[in-house]
């Protein structure tokens, strides 16, 4: 069974029929050629397939394409500037050595981008919790944490008497 959906991806409007059984990941990768989102588990455990749906990170392997109807979607392909200029988050990932095999990188960049664009403050622990849906086997997460902190410069809450810090489960 097919269903017609309309959504925007990286600012571009689409309107076409999808198989109702297809995941958003399959539609992005197989129909739109946006292969930056990766499949690492297919069941929402690893985060490699994350994209932003209305600004919120989602695992697209378990997000049906039909649910994307009317949504605004942003993939890793929509993060850099039109001439390839890296975003601040991407630049931070490059500079901090947060990339190794690169399979988890697009998802992590997108979640960090959502955190940055939220304008909210985070403690280091909160930041880690936000990123904990992304598995990485190469980096031991050290430089990923550094890159995320650098991306959110000015929004990392370190003073121990802040309400953030008290709220954090450590």
């Amino acid at each position: 069974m097919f269903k017609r959906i309309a959504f925007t991806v990286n600012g571009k409007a689409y309107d076409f029929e999808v198989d109702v059984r297809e995941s958003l990941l399959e539609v992005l990768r197989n129909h739109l050629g946006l292969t930056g989102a990766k499949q690492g588990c297919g069941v929402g455990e690893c985060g490699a397939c994350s994209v932003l749906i209305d600004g919120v990170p989602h695992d697209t392997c378990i997000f049906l394409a039909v649910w994307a109807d009317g949504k605004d979607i942003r993939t890793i392909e929509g993060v850099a500037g039109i001439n390839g200029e890296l975003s601040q988050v991407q630049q931070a990932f490059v500079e901090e050595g947060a990339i190794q095999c690169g399979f988890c990188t697009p998802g992590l960049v997108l979640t960090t981008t959502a955190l940055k664009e939220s304008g909210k403050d985070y403690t280091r622990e909160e930041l880690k919790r936000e990123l904990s849906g992304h598995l990485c086997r190469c980096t031991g997460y050290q430089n990923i944490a550094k890159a995320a902190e650098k991306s959110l410069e000015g929004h990392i809450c370190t003073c121990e008497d802040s309400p953030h810090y008290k709220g954090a489960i450590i």
Partner: protein
Amino acid sequence: MAYTVVGKSVSRADAVAKVTGKAKYTDDFSERGMLVGKILHSPYAHALVKSIDVSKAKALPGVEAVITHQDIPKIRYATAIPGVIEAIATDEVGVAELKYATAGHPFSLDPSHRDKEDRYILTQRARFIGDNIAAVVATDALTASKALKLIEVEYEELEALTTTEAALKEGAPLIHDDCERNILSSAGYVIGDIEQALKESDHLIEGEYETSIVQHCHLENQISLAYVDSDRRIVIMTSTQIPHIVRRIVAQALGISWGRVRVIKPYVGGGFGNKQDVTVEPLNAVMSLAVGGRPVKLELSREEAMIDTRTRHAFKFKIKTGVNSDGKINGIQIEAVSNTGAYASHGHSIASSGGGKFRYLYQTKALKYEPLTVFTNLPVAGAMRGYGTPQIFFAFESHIEDISRKLKLDPIELRKINLVETGHVDPLNQTVIRSCGIRECIDKGKELIKWDAKKALYKEQKGVKRRGLGMACFSYASGTYPVALELGGARIVMNQDGSVQLQLGATEIGQGSDTVFAQMVAEVLGIPMHMVHVISTQDTDISPFDTGSYASRQTYVSGMAVEKAALEVKRKVLAVAHSMTDIPAHLLDLKQQHIVMKESGERVMELEVAAMQSYYDRVHAQPITSDVTNNARINAIPYGVTFAEVEVDIKTGKIKILEIFNVHDSGKIVNPQLAEGQVHGGVGMAIGYAISEQLLFDEKTGQPLNNNLLDYKLPTIMDIPEIGAAFVEKEDPTGPFGVKALGEPPIISPAPAIRNAVLDATGVAFNRIPMNPQRVFEKFKEAGLTLN
């Protein structure tokens, strides 16, 4: 020596491609009309296939082929004769099924040095849950999955042997008929008179230690894409560490000439040894041949990949050590039993490799190593980061800690008394230790963690949360010499503007090898990094021959070829400059894209001018290239140490790592940021190995219980503490720029260091990993430690 690019933290060559999502992995490629392959796995750990009925599966619309073991000889036979791909449909007989070996080792001309050929592409006898019984090729994944369910297989169940004890038992059924007592190999060694050495020691200390089965869990599962090209050659794009070896093994599995296979390796989403083995590729080739050479993609799911690729061997050790009261170790006797699962893969060489690399750390009068590698009806164990060393060092570095406590000796001093020194020659393989920074690593680690101050502070704790310190050492090797051949290949082409293409047979799988090779070339040629274009894709039709990424060999072994290739280009550039200026080439050098006078640094001409001359001189035009193979008949031994501080919760059994430092002597560090990345990743993986990860099976049936990323406890960003990485750069005279291995070493020593820290904190010795909260709690209870 002062370098311009080597030793600097330049950004990865592929960083932009990966951070923008442009880097293409195997699944990001497709062909028009591409079909999907899926595998029917055995639901029994040990069973004979009595009959297979594929008629219903074949009748399903969208199914293009259903393949069983009966079809393999026909498909192979068709492949073996050029130009008769269409003969697949005929009933050729008389070609037996072919067994092949899967381990990613260099081939050996000596038949006694080859891997055990025990694998069929599809089997009639299932030896573990997940073994490959049949396969389907269909127009889409859903149809293929449906078709698998329509294949009717009648099995005769056999007794499943899931433990090495059961497999070794007198009268146990044989998993491979030609392996008595289910033993794959038992090749150990003896140095000196072990009985005498143990007898004359003041103390005889014994211990038993055990490690568990874990899995690599690279984020990209095994995946390949195969088709037959217009020359009737089989083309396989695959996520592998070893493209040239895949080419050979696929050809062997199909019984065809090696040149009829072409393997392409794009970006790879992690390997950690699991992709130093041939898993999906031969079956993928068969799938394509079964549909007339059309393109077929074969991707394993996470659940499949965790049981039907490779795992890390669980080991059990019994160690007996003779030591004098002053701490001098006279003799060590190690018995090791490893569970290699259903097929040989790397099993025989992992036990022997662990025992071999262990020898480079301590000096004793006598050493006896008796390994037994045993088949069971569990998933196949193979290469995984460290290749036998995480297991043996967990055992021995725990054991030496136990010795220090029994003899009331300082654990660090005890180790120092027995460590090897520079100049040591291995008595068995004659490897010379030409650089050895283990003592400096220990001193640095001790200082970083503030060992003495904290030791004093943590004496006699009684509370619920207790802190402790532990450390452990390791030795490793840079590549496999003298066990195996170590060829590295590099090719450089200089462009008209003085920039170069660097082609490698060595594979980038995330570790950063492309970047460090580019740094070496940039250094030799005096050009900036952006002028070195690394061809990251390996294509066996095009790339230089090199056996690939394993054994922490590439920066050392392939690096030798890269350095030589760059030096050859440099020599040729200077010869052109000489022809243009009459300045003797030996007085010239390359710096900052210029040909300069070596002594004064005075600029003679731009590099581009010489490069243009090489292309367009009307008489002597000859573009500057080099194509180098280096056979490294030498090794360099890296060392290192882990220092860990833990806080143990007596009530819950939870171990929290407060601080952890890995200090490595890996010779010259070409790129500190990438090197730290290797240490972080290895330590992170080792923390999982020590306290959370274990692939679980039902002991009776061999059924995997947690082959997914939810139930298998892979550390998340919340579980890993800050990891300290430090280096003692003892440059090895044999390595390019003085390098030694670094890829695998970070994973070796953290687990015993954490175990020793828990022992320090609580007085309880955990001789089995993982030390997960359940096990820790139970053991505390046993020891009467738990409060209420």
